[in-house]
């Protein structure tokens, strides 16, 4: 008897142009989004070889990584980034590619604008020269993060030559406790399974706790597939997905909507589908999570203490853990709650959407950021910024003492001017806590938007559930 297919297999197989030995498939790419820091050499390569862009009409470009986030910015507000911004703009124009620069109402972080424009759709393959392209898996799209050579490959051929990943499922059982967010669920899973658990796999997130999430929360979960070591992560589309997509600029409409919706409803994994790895995590006991070290698996509940490297059996893990504590300026056995913070950053493709800002604003409302804390809110896109302002969230943040800035990657990657100073401790809603990620010597703790806002008004890491009640 043949087994039914998984969601991943259905999407992947529909895009196979040709199979090659070594388990490689040539995959057709439905949508391609460019960002300014990884595409210039790709266009240069095309030019050298005299190759055209195969499908400019299926391609979008947006400025996000290196742009200034000053309130009244221009491209020149970050002089260091001008070269890359202008190169993408010129290349997009030369090849007839839509370009959403900082002056455009649709500009924003690639992984934020893909879903909100409806450029990412269930059952489609979307490529982008950025690892967190897996984000769009929250809509049931296959988001493939690629390097610059592959950006050139997609531009030239509208395909990718990829090793077929193995299938994996993580079921989130039970329901999440009040005050616990999607970010906490995925951080807890990374802590449980490790940062290499998903290597060479495409992960499907399933189970009642996932079904209960809104689309923006599902995007947060799929965003951090990379932090589980996977290149791909996705969630089956359902009524929530369809409701989110209806009326989006690049979503189908009218009779086309009916055709598309029928297809999307058939994408879910068959009940008897088999996954090469099948994991589960119980959500009920998960508390708000905070990372203490320099990889994302170094994570604990806010009510826990920092683990002692001496208790680890493996010498390499012991060494790594001790080095992480040294870098972070922490001691084994310290409580993570009560740790003073210098900077708080709310934003990024993990947590820069409207619901994230609402969660942070709910805590900030009527409170004040502690003196000596720099608290920064950067909306994930121009559209998120407008929506937040329409709801008065910018006022809530400003009155509480947060900076309200313009959309981009900002302090997540620190390749513009938004940098955490050396030695400073930052609670960030981003996805990477590597040494130096937010600037040389910066110390990053990853957590949810509500936890970030709570730390800002408390001056130290605190269990948000104590403030929310």
């Amino acid at each position, binding site marked *: 008897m043949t087994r039914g297919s998984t969601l991943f297999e259905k999407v992947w197989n529909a895009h196979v142009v040709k199979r090659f030995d070594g388990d490689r498939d040539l995959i057709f790419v439905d949508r391609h989004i460019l960002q300014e820091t990884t595409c210039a050499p790709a266009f240069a390569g095309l030019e050298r070889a005299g190759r055209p862009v195969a499908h400019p009409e299926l391609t979008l470009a947006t400025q996000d990584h290196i742009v200034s986030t000053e309130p009244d910015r221009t491209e020149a507000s970050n002089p260091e980034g001008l070269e890359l911004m202008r190169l993408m703009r010129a290349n997009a124009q030369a090849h007839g590619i839509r370009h959403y620069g900082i002056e455009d109402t649709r500009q924003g972080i690639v992984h934020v604008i893909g879903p909100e424009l409806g450029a990412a759709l269930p059952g489609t393959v979307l490529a982008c020269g950025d690892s967190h392209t897996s984000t769009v898996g929250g809509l049931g799209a296959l988001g493939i993060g690629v390097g610059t050579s592959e950006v050139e490959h997609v531009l030239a051929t509208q395909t990718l030559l990829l090793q077929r990943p193995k299938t994996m499922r993580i079921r989130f059982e039970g329901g999440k406790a009040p005050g616990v967010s999607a970010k906490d669920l995925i951080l807890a899973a990374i802590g449980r399974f490790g940062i290499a658990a998903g290597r060479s796999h495409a992960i499907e997130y399933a189970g009642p706790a996932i079904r209960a999430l809104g689309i923006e929360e599902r995007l947060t979960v799929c965003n951090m597939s990379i932090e589980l070591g996977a290149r791909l992560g996705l969630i089956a589309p359902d009524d929530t997905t369809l409701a989110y997509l209806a009326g989006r600029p690049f979503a189908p*409409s009218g009779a086309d909507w009916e055709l598309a919706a029928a297809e999307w409803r058939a994408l879910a994994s068959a009940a008897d589908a088999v996954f090469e790895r099948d994991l589960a995590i119980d959500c009920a006991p998960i508390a708000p999570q905070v990372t203490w070290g320099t990889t994302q698996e170094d994570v604990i509940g806010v009510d826990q203490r920092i683990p002692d490297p001496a208790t680890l059996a493996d010498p390499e893990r012991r060494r790594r853990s001790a080095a992480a504590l040294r870098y972070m300026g922490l001691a084994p056995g310290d409580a993570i709650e009560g740790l003073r913070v210098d900077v708080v950053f709310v934003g990024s493709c993990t947590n820069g959407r409207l619901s994230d800002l609402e969660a942070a604003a709910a805590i900030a409302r009527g409170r004040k950021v502690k003196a000596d804390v720099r608290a920064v809110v950067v909306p994930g896109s121009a559209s998120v910024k407008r929506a937040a302002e329409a709801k008065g969230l910018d006022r809530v943040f400003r009155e509480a003492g947060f900076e309200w800035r313009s959309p981009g990657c900002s302090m997540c990657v620190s390749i513009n001017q938004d940098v955490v100073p050396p030695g400073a401790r930052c609670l960030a809603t981003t996805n990477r806590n590597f040494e130096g990620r937010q600037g040389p010597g910066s110390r990053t703790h990853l957590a949810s938007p509500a936890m970030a806002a709570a730390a800002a008004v408390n001056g130290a890491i605190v269990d948000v559930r104590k403030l929310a009640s």
Partner: protein
Amino acid sequence: MRAPLARVTGVAAPLPLTNVNTDAIIPSVYLRSESSDLARGLFARWRFDETGAERPEFVLNRPPFRRAAILLAGENFGCGSSREAAVWALQRFGIKCVVAPSFADIFYENAFRNGMLAAIADQAELAALIAAVEAAPEDAQVDIDLEKGLIVRGNALRMGFSVPAFRREALMRGDDEIASTLRHAKDIAAHAAADRARRGWLYRAIAPEGKSE
């Protein structure tokens, strides 16, 4: 076409750390411009202190490893972002091959696309090679033969490594992957046409004359 790679002979530098991420390999400050000095940026935070002076204890600052052509690394090398500059920085420094027990997915792909060998070795055998090189740095010369799939140091140490056959052949021929794919342009066009017939809505939704433009 890129230069074919069949053999790497040179100094092998030990960096037996687990989960070396792409932010460590090339910090983001080096991604701000097309003309950044990526060779200098390689492992910059580990190689240089805040004043820009070399940290003498870091392996690539010590002779003979300053002219390493091979990096002997730990598990999950290259995890983190998709930045291809991680591979470029290694190459600009002079590294032609990284040997590790395992690699992160995107780094692995990026390496081969740039003509760099990412060789997967048995953990115990690699540990022995690293120990040997650390014990006698003056004898850090290692020879890697792609055709035979062998890593050899002096007369005493021989070990295998794994690399998928198609990747090995592409490296040895110096294949340009785009040119190879474009040889299948007819298949791609046929797939696109069939898909357009089957899922017309997908193409109408983003057509330039579509509703949102």
